[in-house]
């Protein structure tokens, strides 16, 4: 690794997850194997096959502590999740949320906050019905700011007076990892000192319906929500949709040390790529060559050896792709099953939070690195037979273990891949 590159560290984290809001509550839930998956009556009313999902609890109740009455009139669910997670992370980093009427701009700070389908609840619930009824005049003033793709980052920039690049990315289920990747390079390239990076997704039937129609959601566990999300399990029957927001404060090591910030971890590399819908890849299936290139590229960029990776927080959604993902990791690392790094899936507890997934799972990974544990991947007591040889490497119950290097991967529709490698800060 070159010695003159700018190092990037994580100095704050925030989570609005189905099994906990705030990093203390989220960490406790991860350690205790608490599922945030619940039965959702609205999905039953709408004749969804899958009637369970992961929805953060208590957010409307805490929202007035973060936002004014006026602001809340123009914020939909994804904006709330993304901005609350970001403000929590900002404060966790020891940074001050500026007064709304202050005149200071944080020129060195920006954000990349993405989502898969930001604002679709507003589009489906208000915009389309009113326009189709000829009532465009009745929509009021807040449609654009709630439905534009950049709604979350645009709102956050005002809340934190961000003066550097402010944008929202979207790459399906890789959105969260990609946001962190983009923010990482923005700092590494010397264009910013601090970036808020992450993603958010709302709990909207208008998002989840498309997946239900594809029959990729588990519809066999409506009576047992906590058992519904089953990554790496022989009885996995599809993923469980989730919602929430996750955010990291990425900062140049130089600035973090200068201001005496606490440092959770160093982000030592980030790679995204695409399989081009070739070599077995398609809109919905991964090109394994691309997945392995992504992982190997991240390892090379980090200047480490494959054997240095202690743990993997996988994409692992509980679809038929799980065994392939495990095999791709083994192939990329060129290791036998018993040498695979320990692997877990945060989705076993929070479901697949889509555009927020990579961000929330990165927060989980950083908590694990910082506090010396690996959370159990619940609901895989019956390991899928195709990955039986890896059984001992799957963390099924939370263990105290100090890992030094952890890799977080996400994959998404469009054949896109992302791999982040975090190193414990010592």
């Amino acid at each position, binding site marked *: 690794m070159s010695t003159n590159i700018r190092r990037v560290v994580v100095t704050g984290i925030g989570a609005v997850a189905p099994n906990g809001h705030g990093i203390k509550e989220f960490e406790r839930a991860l350690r205790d194997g608490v599922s945030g998956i619940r039965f959702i009556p609205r999905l039953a009313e709408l004749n969804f096959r899958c009637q369970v999902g992961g929805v953060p609890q208590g957010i409307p109740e805490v929202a007035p502590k973060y936002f004014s009455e*006026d602001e809340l009139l123009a914020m939909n669910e994804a904006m709330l999740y993304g901005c609350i997670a970001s403000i929590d992370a900002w404060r966790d980093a020891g940074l001050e949320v500026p007064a709304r009427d202050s005149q200071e701009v944080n020129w060195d700070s920006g954000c990349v906050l993405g989502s898969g389908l930001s604002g679709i609840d507003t589009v489906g619930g208000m915009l389309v019905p009113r326009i189709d009824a000829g009532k465009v005049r009745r929509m009021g003033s807040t449609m654009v700011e709630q439905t534009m793709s950049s709604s979350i980052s645009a709102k956050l920039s005002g809340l934190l007076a961000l003066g550097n690049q402010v944008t929202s990315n979207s790459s399906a289920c890789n959105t969260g990892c990609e946001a962190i990747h983009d923010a990482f390079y923005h700092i590494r390239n010397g264009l910013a000192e601090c970036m808020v990076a992450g993603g958010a997704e709302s709990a909207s039937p208008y998002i989840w319906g498309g997946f239900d129609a594809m029959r990729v959601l588990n519809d066999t566990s409506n009576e047992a929500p906590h058992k519904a999300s089953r990554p790496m399990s022989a009885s996995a029957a599809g993923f469980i949709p989730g919602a929430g927001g996750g955010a990291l404060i990425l900062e140049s090591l130089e600035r973090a040390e200068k201001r005496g910030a606490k440092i959770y971890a160093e982000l030592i590399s980030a790679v995204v790529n695409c399989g081009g819908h070739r070599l077995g890849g398609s809109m919905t299936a991964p090109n394994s060559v691309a997945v392995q290139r992504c992982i190997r590229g991240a390892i090379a960029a980090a200047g480490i050896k494959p054997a240095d990776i202690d743990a993997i927080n996988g994409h692992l959604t509980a679809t038929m792709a799980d065994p392939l993902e495990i095999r791709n990791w083994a192939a990329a690392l060129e290791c036998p099953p018993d040498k695979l790094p320990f692997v877990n899936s945060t989705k076993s507890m929070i479901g697949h939070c889509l555009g927020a997934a990579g961000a929330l799972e990165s927060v989980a990974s950083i908590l694990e690195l910082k506090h010396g544990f690996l959370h159990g991947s619940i609901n895989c007591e019956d390991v899928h037979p195709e990955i039986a040889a890896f059984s001992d490497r799957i963390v099924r119950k939370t263990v105290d273990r100090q890992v030094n290097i952890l890799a977080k991967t996400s994959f998404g529709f469009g054949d896109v891949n992302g791999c982040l490698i975090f190193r414990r800060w010592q």
Partner: protein
Amino acid sequence: MSDVVMDQVVAIVTPFARNKEALQSVGPDSTFLQDLQVSSSRLVDIILAIEDKFGIEVDDTEADKINTIGAAVSLIKSKQTH
């Protein structure tokens, strides 16, 4: 002297007012933008809420002239008497 229509207009404007202190001394001459610090883009929402509350229609020309609490109250009362 208490004015029911004015009280209702103030209630409509309250969530949009970013200057909560100004609400304590609100009166007919209070301006939406300068005194109450309502975002200019939100004036549209206040007009819609007034239409709903009082069962009236306010066209765009009339809406453009509503700069104060008093102007809103006067317009509402004029429409209610027709």
